[in-house]
């Protein structure tokens, strides 16, 4: 009986070394993630076939070696890159690989006004606003969007609501809380939504 266990142990260790070897080669050949996952699963299958028998027998007989058994039943998780659609910011890269630089999103220079999606949505800015100064002295946006200039420049007029303070009192100039246009009105990059969105605006807003 003892000899049988010994024999089994030898088989076990051999299987273990094979498994370890397999996994190390997996890490080396990380270029093809699909292939590595395949080989990994086959090696674990092999091991798990033998593992339960050993576990049972060692339990019956003498002090088992729980560490090894654990390793057999739960193979070390690595080089499996399927995160079921959710990826880290580094992408599906191994720890030793450098993450690829993300593609920078380009701001379109100029386009037609962007449709609004919901009621009272602040309109989006359909042009570049780099270097548009909004300082105590100067509001570049109002060079076109103010009541004085909107007709000449063909821009959207600033809403009358922007002249009201928080108590609803009308002011002669743009209210301080509405002065900084880009707190609400922002340009848009052409970015696809990360999560699919089926939201549809109300028909009347179309």
């Amino acid at each position, binding site marked *: 009986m003892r000899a049988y266990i010994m024999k089994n142990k030898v088989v076990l260790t051999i299987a273990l070394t094979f498994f370890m070897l397999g996994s190390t080669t997996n890490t080396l050949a990380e270029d093809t993630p699909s292939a590595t996952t395949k080989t990994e699963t086959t090696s674990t299958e092999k091991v798990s076939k033998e593992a339960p028998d050993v576990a049972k027998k060692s339990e019956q007989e003498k002090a088992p070696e729980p560490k090894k058994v654990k390793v057999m039943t739960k193979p070390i998780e690595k080089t499996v890159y399927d995160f079921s659609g959710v990826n880290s910011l580094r992408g599906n890269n191994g720890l030793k690989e450098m993450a690829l630089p993300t593609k920078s999103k380009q701001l379109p*220079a*100029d*386009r*037609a006004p962007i449709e609004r999606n919901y009621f009272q949505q602040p309109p989006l800015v359909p*042009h570049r606003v*780099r*270097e548009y*100064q909004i*300082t*105590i*002295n*100067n509001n*570049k946006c*109002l*060079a076109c969007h*103010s009541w*004085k*200039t909107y007709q000449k*420049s063909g821009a959207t007029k600033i809403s009358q609501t922007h002249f009201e303070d928080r108590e609803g009192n009308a002011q002669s100039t743009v209210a301080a809380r509405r002065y900084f246009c880009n707190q609400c009105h922002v340009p848009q990059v052409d970015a696809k939504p990360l999560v699919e969105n089926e939201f549809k605006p109300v028909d009347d807003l179309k």
Partner: protein
Amino acid sequence: MFARTKRFLSKRSVISVVIMGFITGVIFWGGFNTALEITNTEEFCISCHEMKENVYVEYRQTIHYQNRTGVRATCPDCHVPKEWTHKMIRKIEASREVFHKILGTIDTPKKFRDYRLTMAKSEWRRMKKADSRECRNCHEYGSMDYSMQSRRASPQHIAGFKEGKTCIDCHKGIAHKMPDTKALTPEERKEFNLN
């Protein structure tokens, strides 16, 4: 007497005087030009803290400092004319700036803020008078392809040039922050095309 003059004007001396004059001329003119060119560098401009801590800091945020093509316009590219005559005139005018540097007219942030509109007005006037000459060293409107400009820029450029406007009429505060223009008179607002 006559003999002395004759001796003085002997062939040798005339030639030597001409050569000496030529050499000293080259040295002086070369030195003058080199010195002038040194004052025409960004390094020289920001060797004064008034420039380095105010306008230079603002300029570093703008497209004339950093952009997609890597073409950079430094201080003298916009503020000093390229042609010799205009450059000399501007350089002589600049002696006033040296005077004010010594007086310390803008040596604190507060003083700079208070004096800013005056300085901006003088530079806007200079630009307008010269038909934005320094802008046109790079941005010549004859070389502009309107069809490649954005849908908002293209019609405005066409209309602007038709009206006889020049770059600075619209493109103010592009490399530095705008001054507080509240103190401008209505006439001045019209002159500078401000609303």
